[in-house]
């Protein structure tokens, strides 16, 4: 599986995005706000845990997270560059 699809699968599971599949989510669509997946502040924190757990990436603050979680494309390239596992 491509990294971006792997991340999508993990996010769908971690955030309980019921009824969604990786194909439903556009690589460049925003994760937050009403036009995107509509994720909120708790989801950001859960995504921070997801990155640490699966890829060994530690983000210190939600603000740092928001920059990384702009879209799945941004997230995948960040993971590819910074992963330690």
């Amino acid at each position: 599986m491509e990294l971006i699809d792997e991340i999508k699968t993990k996010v769908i599971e971690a955030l309980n995005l019921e009824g969604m599949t990786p194909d439903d989510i556009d690589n460049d669509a925003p994760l937050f706000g009403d036009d995107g997946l509509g994720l909120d502040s708790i989801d950001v924190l859960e995504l921070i845990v997801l990155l640490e757990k699966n890829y060994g990436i530690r983000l210190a603050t939600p603000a740092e997270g928001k920059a990384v979680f702009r879209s799945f494309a941004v997230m995948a390239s960040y993971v590819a560059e910074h992963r330690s596992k």
Partner: protein
Amino acid sequence: MIRVYCHGYGVRTPLGNNAGELLQCILEGRTALKLHTGVFGCPVPFVASLFEDRASAPGLSFFESIAVEAAKDALAGTDSASVALVLASIKGNVEKIGGEDVSLAASARRIADALGMEIPPLVVSNACISGLAGLVQGFRMLRSGRYSKVLVLGAEVQSKFIVTGFQSLKALSMEQCKPFDAARDGLNLGEAAAAILLSTEEGPWEIVSGAVRNDANHISGPSRTGEGSWKALCQVLEGINPEDLAFINVHGTSTVYNDEMEAIAIDRAGLADVPVNALKGVFGHTMGAAGVLESILSMLSADRGVVLPTRGFSTLGVSRPVKVSASASKTDKKAFIKLLSGFGGVNGALLFRKGGER
């Protein structure tokens, strides 16, 4: 109309077990907040106010033990059999989760038994406003005419469960917290037990009214408009002219969003000229105990004609011009408001007035 008064009180905090001494500590600028490393098996250090001596009474957990001790001081000399217990706590014995019965119901039963109380106890677990909501509940039980005395007992101890949880929310500061300050960056957790005996007999302080309102906005983020807090304030303001308020003792957790939200609510309610103080810089956020503990200290300070200082505050860091008390000041006013907010979007306000003042 039945009126409700505060009689005895009791406190257990890492800074002292006597409310008068605790008040003195606050005036001297002391704090129980310090960095803890490796405590409770938490992998990441944290700043908190924790008891050093963690001995339990036989048959009781540490949480129940400090609750019983604070309650005994509040009950001194009262026949407890006819006193109803309202216990306020968020997590009780959660440190023991996985093995025994950690329910707050079981804790309340053991506490009531240890105190010789015969009426089935009630637990209020309404997030960070639990102590305040417990006082509102006790107030109503007395006003219903079915009870003559209610002991409202707030208690909380810390554990790996709570500390790692707040760390996962990135809500803790690694320094001593700074309520309403421009440099505030999170809260500190604290442990305490505090009790107030409420009665319909006339006493030194009266609870005039209380209100609880929900933001109906988000389960963990405070409302950007201070909605519920403002509504709760408006409700209790019906019982007082704002000019008669000595101060508002706020929640002041020192998270960026909570303090900003409270400033908006206070300003919207037309209270920007009333002194505001917060005590989290002394003993941290004592969760279920906060409403009771902070109400006791507010009553005692008003008795002495003092508006307590806000330890940790120096430069106003909220968008509204609220009058945060950096240092102690004098007051001759005989009423105050206690304000709290919590997860679940819940907010509460209580109006206290010196007995015989209306």
